[in-house]
């Protein structure tokens, strides 16, 4: 192949030269070029290596079906493999190179693998996974584990950058009345028809130019421009560089818009790509057709391409792709390009398999009848083509034709992929030798070449019809019309007994022998054929080789193609970058972050933060040089000695309202709430239906019909959904309404012996919180000095005298500052989640670490809370024998036998000398207790503390490699009578 750019012609902009780099060499092209056309114009013949055999590959097409020019572009973090050069718009500074080759695609040492090609036939992986025959028969896969790495290095398709992606990607939604996919003559006409009828139309085109096949026809350029202008005037929303990669339920289409894949670096703030979800009333698929090739020996050599690709390079890009050109065809469509190439100065020979009915040879073109390509002569380039002639169903060698370019037209495959996504069954049309989409139940309409029409006028007419159909208007009949002279189907040219490599799916190095081998080994279903051979998988998705593969399988089975069936196309039609799927939900936005109303205030006080679900919570407030452990110890000590203030805003808060609110809570919680007095709070536990603990928290009765339920931070959403479900589905008769008020209130815990004094100094009326005015578990509305009304409850998680003050979120900083100003006078502190954990472990209070979805009330030592006088959710199933077993794990406190030793949360508790298996229990929480001066923990132990009284256990931590002797004790390890919090 000796391609060259012509002095004139094409629709590239010759006034805008572009520079780019290919394999380290500086080359030039023009605006309007693709990377493939620019490479061709520069005479680059070998642009890639095949992924299995490392065979040299050239440019084989001019579109999405490209199987040869699959390249890598970009550097460092922007390096992107597997880019189809035929679809990559050329831009100034583009840096590209051939992939899957070393040192280069022109001379690739990996090509040695081709010598062992017969060992890499279909099923190679499956067979060797099971052990390399015959050496490992029945012995496992030892060798595979060794050579897998070598194979993975040698095979594959390019390498992605390991650097973080520097670009941004957007997600977006769009709505329209009619979505038209494809902007060829049918798509343009459909869009125009619908828009002129007043519909909102979205027209998407994967190319950077509108026109589809009109772009390849110099005589149609005027018509193309005229239609584009009309479409724009009619108000059609046009999206170029946009691929509809999938269709989904209810008129939903997935699109990828390549916003900035044509400059080297996206402009500031512009995304590289947008992932669109489009919802439409109706869809017109004018997705065109792809030209098929034919399987024959060495049909993948550089210099073999489809006939229509040569037409595109000649007429759109002004490139004469060869000088001595053989055009092999079995249908009419190649006649036009043969004539155009001859007119452009090439020596053209047209080899038509047909002998009886075909068009006249174009001027300057020599016509050979009844022959087809048998074998390409030449290794790195086409030097000639050996032809064959068929007699009585058998192929015989014929003459050879010297040539530098072989163009093949084996027929057309309408692009029905998107229709297939909607379960439309492909139907074989014998007269066209192709699959068309079967009927669809949804308002999706095929048009143009995608509907089997192969001339522009018919395509336009069908586009108009499809649009009218989509609008529910009457339509005119457009007869299904192929070419003037019928196609003579041909899928493979092969001499009897030949072992030559004839590629069916060049991208995956799948040969016609692979298809036969699959049949020979019993894989006769097309679905099995696909998986066994990898035919039509990955980025190709059946564009190139599906029909040939099916035809060969049909031949092997002695059936017709429709009897063999077809595989279903699945999204995506073309690859979608993972970045586009992720959108902006990366990095800090991987998930939404929740901040308490005191987030910034906590940070200003020096807080270190920690994730708790989606929340950011203050973890600890380190003094000079303090570690987390040191800080938490100091904070916990301060709370026990004077006073501490903690942000507890993340607790879930649910307003429960209505005349049946108390009854509702009685059914939800295991303990009684019906008689809870107004102005009182109660600790409650709710179970799941299966008797397992779901969540716990305090609920405050604000009035007869108004409660404020609090939940754990982690279960707030789950509990709200659960309560909604109960009210809507199980007890719709209850007059109860619930609402989340979590974000309305900031929560401040004030705990410690001086808590009352500090809080009192911040209130309008400090007498309101004296013990006689607000006893333990008392609730009331109070006003701060600033007259802001707040909710206050006397409750304690730390085991100290404690209050929880709920302040309207907007006033949280003001309230926190007031409390902190007064707490400092008492040598108090701010404390975080780590100290909170220390305090509650000392008290044996459970959290989600202990209530992990497996434990019962009795397991957690809370069985006595369950009411025996009323039913409640889970009350029946908690009595299951399995949950009543005496050897179930029970909550225990853990202390080290040697008080200087430390043990870890997550350790398995084992009997002394029996460190094995799952042990006798596990440790859920561990902290250094300032009150006890040693490490303590909570955990679960089979039979509970009484069963292990006086026995030494081992806290085994095989992951971190430690075994520590521990003892099981009562979980309430500090002030077990609760005197401090009741004072």
């Amino acid at each position, binding site marked *: 192949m000796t391609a060259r750019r012509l002095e004139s012609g094409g629709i590239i902009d010759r006034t805008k030269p572009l520079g780019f780099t290919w394999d380290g060499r500086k080359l030039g092209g023009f605006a309007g070029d693709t990377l493939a056309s620019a490479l061709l114009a520069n005479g680059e013949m070998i642009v890639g290596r095949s992924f299995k055999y490392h065979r040299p590959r050239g440019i084989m097409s001019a579109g999405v079906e490209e199987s040869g020019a699959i390249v890598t572009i970009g550097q460092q973090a922007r390096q992107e493999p597997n880019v189809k050069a035929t679809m990559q718009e050329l831009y100034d500074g583009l840096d590209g190179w051939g992939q899957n080759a070393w040192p280069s695609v022109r001379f690739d040492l990996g090509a040695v693998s081709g010598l062992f090609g017969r060992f890499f036939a279909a099923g190679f992986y499956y067979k060797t996974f099971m052990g390399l025959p015959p050496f490992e028969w029945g012995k496992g896969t030892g060798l595979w584990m060794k050579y897998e790495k070598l194979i993975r290095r040698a095979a594959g398709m390019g390498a992605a950058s390991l650097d973080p992606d520097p670009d*941004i990607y*957007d*997600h*977006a*939604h*769009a*709505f329209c009345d009619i979505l038209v996919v494809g902007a060829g003559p049918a798509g343009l006409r459909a869009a125009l028809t619908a828009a002129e009828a007043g519909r*909102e139309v979205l027209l998407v085109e994967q190319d950077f130019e509108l026109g589809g096949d009109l772009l390849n026809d110099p005589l149609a350029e005027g018509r193309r421009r005229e239609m584009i202008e009309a479409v724009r005037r009619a108000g059609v929303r046009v999206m170029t560089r946009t691929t509809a990669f999938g269709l989904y339920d209810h008129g939903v289409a997935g699109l990828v818009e390549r916003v900035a894949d044509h400059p080297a670096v996206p*402009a*500031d*703030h*512009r*995304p590289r790509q947008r992932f669109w*979800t489009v*919802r439409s009333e109706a869809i017109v698929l004018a997705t065109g057709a792809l030209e098929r090739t034919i399987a024959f020996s060495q049909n993948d050599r550089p210099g073999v391409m489809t006939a229509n690709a040569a037409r595109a390079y000649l007429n759109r890009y002004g490139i004469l792709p060869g000088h001595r050109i053989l055009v092999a065809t079995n249908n009419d469509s190649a006649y036009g390009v043969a004539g155009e190439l001859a007119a452009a100065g090439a020596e053209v020979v047209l080899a038509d398999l047909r002998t009886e009915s075909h068009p006249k040879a174009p001027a300057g073109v020599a016509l050979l009848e009844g022959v087809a390509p048998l074998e390409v002569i030449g290794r790195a380039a086409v030097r000639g083509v050996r032809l064959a002639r068929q007699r009585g169903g058998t192929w015989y060698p014929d003459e050879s034709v010297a040539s530098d370019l072989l163009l093949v037209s084996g027929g057309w495959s309408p692009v029905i992929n998107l229709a297939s996504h909607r379960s439309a069954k492909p139907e074989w049309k014998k007269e066209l030798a192709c699959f068309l989409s079967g009927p669809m139940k949804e308002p999706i309409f095929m048009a143009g070449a995608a509907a089997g029409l192969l001339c522009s006028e018919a395509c336009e007419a069908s586009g108009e019809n499809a649009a009218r159909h989509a609008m529910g208007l009457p339509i005119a009949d457009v007869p299904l019309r192929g070419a003037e002279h019928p196609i003579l189907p041909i899928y493979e040219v092969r001499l009897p007994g030949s072992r030559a490599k004839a590629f069916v799916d060049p991208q995956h190095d799948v040969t016609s022998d692979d298809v036969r081998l699959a049949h020979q080994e019993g894989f006769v279903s097309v679905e099995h054929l696909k998986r066994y051979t990898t035919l039509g998988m990955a980025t190709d998705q059946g564009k190139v080789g599906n029909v040939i593969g099916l035809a060969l399988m049909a031949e092997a089975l002695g059936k017709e193609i429709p009897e063999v069936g077809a595989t279903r196309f699945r999204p995506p039609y073309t690859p979608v970058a993972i970045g586009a799927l992720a959108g*902006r*939900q990366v990095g*800090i*936005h991987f*998930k*939404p*972050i*929740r*901040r*308490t*109303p005191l987030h*910034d205030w906590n940070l200003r006080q020096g807080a270190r933060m920690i994730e708790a679900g989606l*929340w950011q919570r203050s973890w600890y407030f380190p003094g000079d040089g303090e570690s987390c452990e040191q800080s938490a110890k100091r904070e916990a000590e301060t709370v026990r000695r004077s006073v501490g203030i903690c942000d507890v805003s993340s607790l879930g808060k649910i*307003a429960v*309202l*209505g*005349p049946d*609110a108390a009854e509702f809570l009685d059914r939800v919680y295991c303990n009684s709430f019906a008689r809870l007095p107004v102005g009182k709070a109660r600790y409650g536990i709710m179970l799941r239906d299966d008797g397992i603990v779901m969540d716990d928290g305090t609920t405050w009765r*604000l*009035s007869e*019909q*108004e409660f404020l339920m609090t939940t754990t931070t982690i279960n707030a959403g789950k509990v709200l959904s659960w309560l909604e479900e109960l009210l809507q589905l199980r007890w719709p008769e209850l*007059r109860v*309404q619930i*609402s989340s*008020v*979590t*974000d*309305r*209130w900031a929560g401040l815990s004030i705990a410690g012996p001086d808590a009352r004094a500090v809080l009192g100094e911040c209130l309008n009326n400090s007498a309101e919180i004296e013990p006689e005015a607000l006893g333990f578990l008392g609730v009331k509305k109070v006003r701060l000095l*600033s*007259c*802001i009304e707040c909710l206050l409850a006397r409750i304690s998680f730390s085991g100290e005298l404690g209050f929880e003050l709920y302040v*309207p*979120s*907007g*006033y*949280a*900083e*003001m309230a926190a500052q007031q409390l902190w100003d007064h707490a400092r006078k008492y040598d108090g502190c701010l404390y975080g989640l780590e100290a909170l954990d220390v305090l509650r472990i000392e008290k044996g209070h459970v959290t989600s670490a202990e209530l992990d979805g497996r434990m019962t009330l009795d397991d957690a030592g809370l069985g006595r809370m369950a009411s025996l006088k009323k039913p409640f959710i889970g009350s029946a199933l908690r009595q299951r024998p399995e949950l009543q077993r005496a050897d179930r794990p029970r909550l225990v406190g853990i202390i080290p036998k040697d008080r200087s030793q430390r043990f870890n949360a997550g350790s398995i508790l084992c009997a002394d000398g029996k460190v094995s298996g799952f042990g006798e229990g596990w440790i859920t929480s561990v902290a250094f207790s300032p009150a006890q001066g040693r490490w303590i923990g909570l955990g679960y132990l089979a039979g509970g503390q009484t069963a292990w009284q006086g026995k030494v256990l081992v806290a085994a931590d095989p992951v971190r490699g430690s075994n520590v002797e521990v003892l099981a004790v009562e979980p309430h390890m500090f002030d077990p009578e609760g005197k401090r919090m009741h004072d």
Partner: protein
Amino acid sequence: MTETVSALEGRIRSGHFGAAGSSGISVSEIQSFTLTQFTAWADAMPQAGTDIAHRAGCSAPAAPGLSTEGIAGRLLRVEPLRWWLVGNEPFAPSGDAAGRTHTVVDLSHSRVLLRLSGQSTAELLNHYLPLDLRNAHFQQGHVACSAIHHVGVTLWRDAAGFNLLIPRSFAVSVWSLLVESAKQFGVETVPWKYHSGP
């Protein structure tokens, strides 16, 4: 009177950001509004709607997906049995939390309110919201409850543009996503505006 502190305090810098040229989007925070939730008992409809409209100073309760402007503020129908009153009084309406026809919950402080305007606003919002925001489909007065980045938000349109209520705890996260996305259109941010009356 004590000032409230917005969840976006210190995060909104006044100015033009992103793409050069005129701003396709203007974003400002509306502060000092009240938010009151009214939920009807199903068996008390339509009287509940009449009572709620009366409390909001509206002639009639807004139908689902719509809002009306009343003396006390804008009444949004956010669910079939639920209305939100975005009020311009300093304090939310008082009264029995659980009444004969409906319940009342004060949700003030629970949301951050953004106002977005400019020619590219619908396009920006459609980067996150799967709602048909075309003029003919989401007109002034229309209301929708949806989600941005999995966070439940409430959107309505009025003469000034789009209004977005975001849960306070998620406000910084959603704000930063919106503003980063808006930069491609050019965005003008305004620190805050007090809620002005109807």
